C-alpha cells in the first residue's frame, strides 16, 4: 500500500513539475513578448553623403531588420533571424538559397549514382510525350470535323455568309449591298439618326446627373448625421479620451535618444525666422539633443541625425484594454457604426 502511494505521489510530483515548467515557460515567453522592447534606429545625413538608413531589432540578435538608401547607390535592405540572413537585397546568399543549393547538390549526387534508373526514366518520358502528341493530333482532327458544314444546315450557312459584316446598329446588318432593298441613307435619314443619337445621349446624361446628385445628397445626409453624432456629449467624451490616448502613444513612440543637427536657411530670412519660431513653439529647440540651426544669410539645408527609440508591446496591449473596457467608448462605437450605416 505504502509503495503504491509512493508511486502515485511520485507520478503526481512529476506531473506537477511538468505543468509548472510549462506554465512557467509560457509566462516567460509572454513576459518576453510583452516587455522586451522593439528597438528602432534611424540615421541620416544630408552633407557630402546624402541618404539614410533605418533598423529594427528585437531581443538583441534574435530579429534584426535594416534598410537604407544613399544617393547614387542602390537601395539596400536585409533581415536576420538568430544571426542568419533571411532576406537580402544584395548578392549575399540567404539561408533559403543556401538550403536550396544544398538540396540541388544532393539531388545531383543522387542523380549521378544509378545510371540504369535514369535511362528507364528517359524512356518513360518519351512514351509520355508520344501519347500526348497522339492526343493533340486527335483534338486537331476533331476541330476539323467541327468546321465541316453539312449542306442541309441553314444556321451554319447563314453564319458563314454574315461573318465579318459590320453591324450598322439600325437592324440592317443582314441586308445585302447588291441593291435589291433600299438602303435609306439620305441626308434626312442621317439627320434623323443624329438627332436620335443626341436625344439618347442627353437622356443618358440626365439620368447619370440625377444619379450623381442623389449620391451626393445621400453623402451629405451621412455627413450631417456624423456631425450631429460627433457633437453629442457622449461622443465628445470619447473623442477627448481617444485624442489623449493618441497623444500619449505618439509621445511613447517618439525617439528617446537623439544626436545631430539640422541647419536650414530660406532664401527669405523672414521665412527662416518663422520656421524657427514654429520649432520653438513646438518645443523642438530647447532641451533637445538635436540642434536646430537657422541660417539667415543664405538658402541652405544640411543635417546629420541619429535617433533611437524603443516600443514595448505591453503599452499597446494596455491601451487596447483601456479602450475595450471603457463602457462609454464601446457604446459610442456601436452607435457610430449605426450612424455610418455599417449595421
Amino acid at each position: 500500500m505504502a509503495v503504491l502511494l509512493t508511486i502515485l505521489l511520485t507520478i503526481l510530483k512529476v506531473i506537477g513539475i511538468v505543468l509548472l515548467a510549462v506554465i512557467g515557460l509560457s509566462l516567460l515567453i509572454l513576459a518576453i513578448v510583452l516587455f522586451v522592447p522593439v528597438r528602432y534606429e534611424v540615421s541620416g545625413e544630408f552633407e557630402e553623403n546624402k541618404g539614410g538608413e533605418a533598423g529594427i531589432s528585437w531581443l538583441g540578435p534574435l530579429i534584426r531588420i535594416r534598410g537604407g538608401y544613399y544617393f547614387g547607390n542602390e537601395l539596400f535592405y536585409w533581415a536576420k533571424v538568430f544571426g542568419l540572413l533571411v532576406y537580402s537585397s544584395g548578392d549575399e546568399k540567404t539561408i533559403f538559397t543556401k538550403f536550396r543549393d544544398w538540396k540541388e547538390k544532393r539531388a545531383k549526387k543522387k542523380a549521378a549514382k544509378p545510371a540504369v534508373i535514369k535511362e528507364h526514366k528517359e524512356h518513360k518520358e518519351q512514351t509520355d510525350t508520344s501519347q500526348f502528341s497522339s492526343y493533340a493530333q486527335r483534338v486537331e482532327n476533331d476541330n476539323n470535323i467541327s468546321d465541316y458544314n453539312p449542306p442541309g444546315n441553314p444556321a451554319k450557312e447563314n453564319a458563314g455568309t454574315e461573318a465579318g459584316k459590320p453591324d450598322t446598329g439600325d437592324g440592317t446588318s443582314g441586308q445585302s449591298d447588291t441593291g435589291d432593298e433600299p438602303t435609306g441613307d439620305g441626308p434626312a435619314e442621317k439627320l434623323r439618326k443624329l438627332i436620335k443619337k443626341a436625344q439618347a445621349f442627353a437622356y443618358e446624361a440626365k439620368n447619370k446627373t440625377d444619379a450623381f446628385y442623389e449620391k451626393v445628397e445621400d453623402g451629405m445626409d451621412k455627413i450631417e448625421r456624423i456631425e450631429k453624432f460627433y457633437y453629442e456629449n457622449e461622443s465628445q467624451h470619447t473623442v477627448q479620451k481617444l485624442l489623449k490616448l493618441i497623444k500619449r502613444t505618439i509621445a511613447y513612440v517618439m525617439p528617446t535618444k537623439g544626436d545631430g543637427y539640422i541647419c536650414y536657411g530660406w532664401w527669405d530670412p523672414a521665412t527662416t525666422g518663422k520656421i524657427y519660431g514654429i520649432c520653438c513653439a513646438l518645443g523642438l529647440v530647447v532641451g533637445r539633443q538635436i540642434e536646430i540651426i537657422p541660417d539667415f544669410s543664405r538658402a541652405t539645408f544640411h543635417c546629420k541625425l541619429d535617433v533611437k527609440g524603443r516600443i514595448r508591446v505591453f503599452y499597446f496591449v494596455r491601451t487596447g484594454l483601456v479602450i475595450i473596457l471603457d463602457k462609454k467608448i464601446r457604446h459610442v462605437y456601436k452607435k457610430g457604426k449605426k450612424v455610418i450605416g455599417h449595421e
Partner: protein
Amino acid sequence: MTFADNLYVGESIKHKSERILSRMEQNKFLMEVFCITKASNPNNLYDIYNYLEFKQPYYKDKPIHILGIAGSKQEAMELVASMLITEGVVS
C-alpha cells in the same frame, strides 16, 4: 416649410418630386432645386430661391410657403410665367 395645395412642379423634376418634397420636409440636403415663393418685397410678385439658401440659419425660424419647385433657374422662371398665366395675373 409649408407647401401650397396647388404646388407647381417643373417638368425636369416631376419624376422625383415625391423624393424632393419628403427631403424638403425633413430639411435635408438637395442639389439643384429652385423654389418659388411669394415675394418678400410687396412690389414684386414672386421670389426664386435656390433650396440650399433655406439651409442657412437665418431661415431656420422663418415660415416659408413654397408655391412651386423647379430643376433649374431657367425652368423656375418658365414656371413663374405659367403660374402668372394660370392664375390670371397676365393674359
